[in-house]
């Protein structure tokens, strides 16, 4: 076990992938000379050269599509879209090509493509640089969507994604890059099929992913002090969702709060709530609650940004509301 950061875990996994598989290459804006907007590929250009660590022009649609084509051509591209905010410019390639070609071609085409992007708010980058659109990606059949929330997952999920025969989208919450944690450097690929119970509890299930998992755990701490025993579930894989783990937890606790940094209406939290409705309705003692972002373009000033995003205090309130609001 070594102590490292989420950022270094991503970088280590990229390095390992480039070392172990000649078909792997990394492509994106400023992944090379600049070292990556979040320094996740620092030093890789020097180590692996410009063929395998490729700086692209500002052309999201072309280089994402080129990643699809390169995957069709036998490579295992890792495309970095600098942030989810810019990924809207290549969403057509994702929906209509990456996610569609295998099925539409009758199974002839396979696209082993890994796409990484930073996501989320919380750094005062204002409305155009603070989106959380993982839920949109989780709507698209034909792709897998991952949201590593821990240092081991930052590494293990990327390595696992490279084994997949179909496109995998990895969302790294930008606030997590400095996160420190323990890592087994020789640890292999992570499971990318299951959600994880990050903290066992008995009274309420708090279900979160990505950048919200830490907030959920902090809230659980506070609630423990108030005598409320919370279970925290980290979804980890946003598509396909691991219903089994979520439903098992809710059946135990009979109450759930879903935390999602996306805008509330049409959030992934809505899908989780709907699935609990469908799968555990008769086990519920109270309606599933959601803690999401306010439905507003995320403002620049800290006090307004904080007010717009899910916070520990809001999660605590939501949990207390459920305990209070429960029947019998």
């Amino acid at each position, binding site marked *: 076990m070594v102590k490292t950061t989420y950022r270094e875990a991503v970088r280590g996994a990229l390095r390992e992938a480039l070392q172990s598989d000649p078909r792997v290459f990394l492509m994106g804006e400023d992944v090379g000379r600049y070292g990556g907007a979040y320094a996740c590929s620092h030093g890789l250009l020097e180590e692996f050269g410009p063929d395998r660590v490729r700086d692209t022009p500002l052309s999201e649609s072309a280089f994402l599509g080129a990643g699809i084509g390169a995957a069709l051509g036998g*490579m295992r591209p890792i495309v970095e879209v600098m942030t989810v905010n810019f990924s809207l410019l290549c969403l057509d390639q994702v929906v209509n090509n990456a996610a569609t070609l295998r099925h539409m071609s009758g199974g*002839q085409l396979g696209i082993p493509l890994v796409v990484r992007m930073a996501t989320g708010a919380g750094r005062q980058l204002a409305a155009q640089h603070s989106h959380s659109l993982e839920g949109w990606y989780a709507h698209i059949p034909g792709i897998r969507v991952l949201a590593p929330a821990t240092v081991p997952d930052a590494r293990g999920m990327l390595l696992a994604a490279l084994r997949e025969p179909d496109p995998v989208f990895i969302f790294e919450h930008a606030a997590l890059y400095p996160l420190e944690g323990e890592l087994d450097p020789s640890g292999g690929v992570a499971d990318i099929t299951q959600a994880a119970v990050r903290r066992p509890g008995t009274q309420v299930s708090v279900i979160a992913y990505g950048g919200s998992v830490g907030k959920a755990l902090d809230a659980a701490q506070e609630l423990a002090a108030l005598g409320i025993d919370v279970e925290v579930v980290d979804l980890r894989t946003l598509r396909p969702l691991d219903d089994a783990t979520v439903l098992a937890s809710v059946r135990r606790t009979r109450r759930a709060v879903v935390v999602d940094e996306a805008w509330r209406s049409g959030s992934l939290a809505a899908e989780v709530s709907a699935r609990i409705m469908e799968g555990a309705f008769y086990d519920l003692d109270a309606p599933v609650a959601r803690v999401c972002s306010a439905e507003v373009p995320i403002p620049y000033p800290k006090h307004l940004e904080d007010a717009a995003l899910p916070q520990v205090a809001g999660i605590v309130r939501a949990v207390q509301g459920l305990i209070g609001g429960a029947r019998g």
Partner: protein
Amino acid sequence: MGTTVARQPAIERDHALALLREMLRIRRFEEKAAELYSDGKIRGFLHLYIGEEAIAVGTLQALTPDDAIVATYREHGHALARGIPAGAVMAEMYGKATGCSRGRGGSMHLFDVGRRFYGGYAIVGGGLPIAVGLALADKLQGRPRVTACFFGDGAVAEGEFHESLNLAALWKLPVLFLCENNRYAMGTELERHQSQPDLYLKAESYRVPAEQVDGMDVLAVEAATRRVADAVRRGEGPCFLELLTYRFRAHSMYDPELYRTKEEVARWRERDPITTFERRLREGGLLTDASVATLEREVTAELAAAVAEAEAGPWEPVADLLKDVQAATQAPAPSA
């Protein structure tokens, strides 16, 4: 480079007949497809290539089986010229499981990975980045291959055209950009959607060598393609051909054609790539009524067989609806 006067190379008889046959196969196939559409056998969108056959035939003649093809929703001609059996194409248009995309794609989405035919893309411009990526894979793996990417004049207005040309030129990728300039994007005439209607000049602005070619002259198309394809295959970077042509039929079966006159269409029909080529061969003494009759007979027979095969083909069972949304199995572990 600029415009090249359509040259008149000495014609070799067998080759000329092969070209004529290929164009005829496409023409008759699509005439039949139009009929079958009216009969309700083919549904959805159907975009006919009639009038543009010299391009698919001329370009694909000049490419090798190792080269890759990326096409549009108007790709029956390219699929047939690439050698996908007419039966598999027709079955696809019927939506039968024996179709080249297992019936799931239909007319707009023909695929045959064995023949490196990477499809039929229905989002205009959407195929260009894919072609760039296929070429990147070849370059990274040191394979001397060409990726031929077909698209229309309308696609040139899309941002993806711009991004793809820059990327291919910047990285010197072996892409052969083949712009089928039929002067219309649906109902919008070239001059009404492009500020620079000489599209090859646009390509040159990316430092991509580009030529304008008479797309109604199959020999000129073939010659130009051979010339530039070799350069592309040698690794000299992408090339661009603007192939001047015209769509004789409506954009799709829904199109009332309010945007152009019968006279305009008639003028272009005089330049029909098949009849003009046939005339030329006759004048050159390379073609007789008898050989034409034989050709037509053989083409008709092949087509009849294709339709029969499509009719006889099974439907994919509904139980398989979700099959291949994702692969059933995981990919092999990294080779190293």
